[in-house]
């Protein structure tokens, strides 16, 4: 299961809308506890696939290292990634699967149609190695933010 709060969920979807018609991408930081990936923050990353940004994304390793380092300093791990599918369903593609290597992490995809975010789905990359990996549909729990007390 993937758990995230409303603010993070909205930020992921808004990023997809802002990047349209190109794919957006980012990193989900938080904790993985008993098979549940709990997201505390979503960090935007640049899409370095400028040659084909409408249907491809890639995060530069240097940027990922930096985000990972900053996450560790805040006590958070990389628990997943997100990207958008402009004018395409929120389902993983063959390319998504071939390029997925972070076993145990959540891959969140938001479909963006004509600039407006539609479905957001998550897929858990299961398996113990590159040879037996698989994507599984993953439940997404969005928690409402508690109202601030006066």
């Amino acid at each position, binding site marked *: 299961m993937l758990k995230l709060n409303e603010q993070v969920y909205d930020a992921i979807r808004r990023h997809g809308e802002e990047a349209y018609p190109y*794919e957006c*991408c980012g990193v989900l930081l938080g904790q*993985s506890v008993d098979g549940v990936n709990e997201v505390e923050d979503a960090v935007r990353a640049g899409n370095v*696939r400028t040659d*084909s940004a409408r*249907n*491809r*994304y*890639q*995060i530069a*390793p*240097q940027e*990922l*290292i930096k985000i*990972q380092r900053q996450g*560790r300093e805040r006590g958070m*791990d*990389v*628990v997943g*990634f997100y*990207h958008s*599918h*402009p004018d*395409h*369903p929120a389902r*993983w*593609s063959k*390319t*998504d*699967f*071939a*390029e*997925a*290597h*972070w*076993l*145990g*992490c959540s*891959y969140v995809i938001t479909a963006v149609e004509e600039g407006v975010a539609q479905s957001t789905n998550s897929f858990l990359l299961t398996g*113990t*190695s*590159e040879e037996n990996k698989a994507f599984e549909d993953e439940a997404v729990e969005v928690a409402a933010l508690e109202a601030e007390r006066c």
Partner: protein
Amino acid sequence: MKILIPTPLRVYSDKQDTVSVNATTVGEALDALTAKHPDLKKHLYSEEGKLRSFVNVYLNDEDIRYLPEKDETKVSDKDALSIIPSIAGGC
């Protein structure tokens, strides 16, 4: 020196996010890592013994594939190696 282990590989490093090794070169550091945690080896290297194409290893902010001396690059205790699987995809 420190070697930073990414989330998916920690199951093979006794759940440690950082492994400390004594080494004078990048190659020695990676050898020390897989000697300490042998299960990591097949996840980092192909059967031919080369780094898997999707596994990136950075010495501080430099990809070791592009360092002039590659595995023979000298390291000190202040350096950090980051193992970082690639992240990409698309519809």
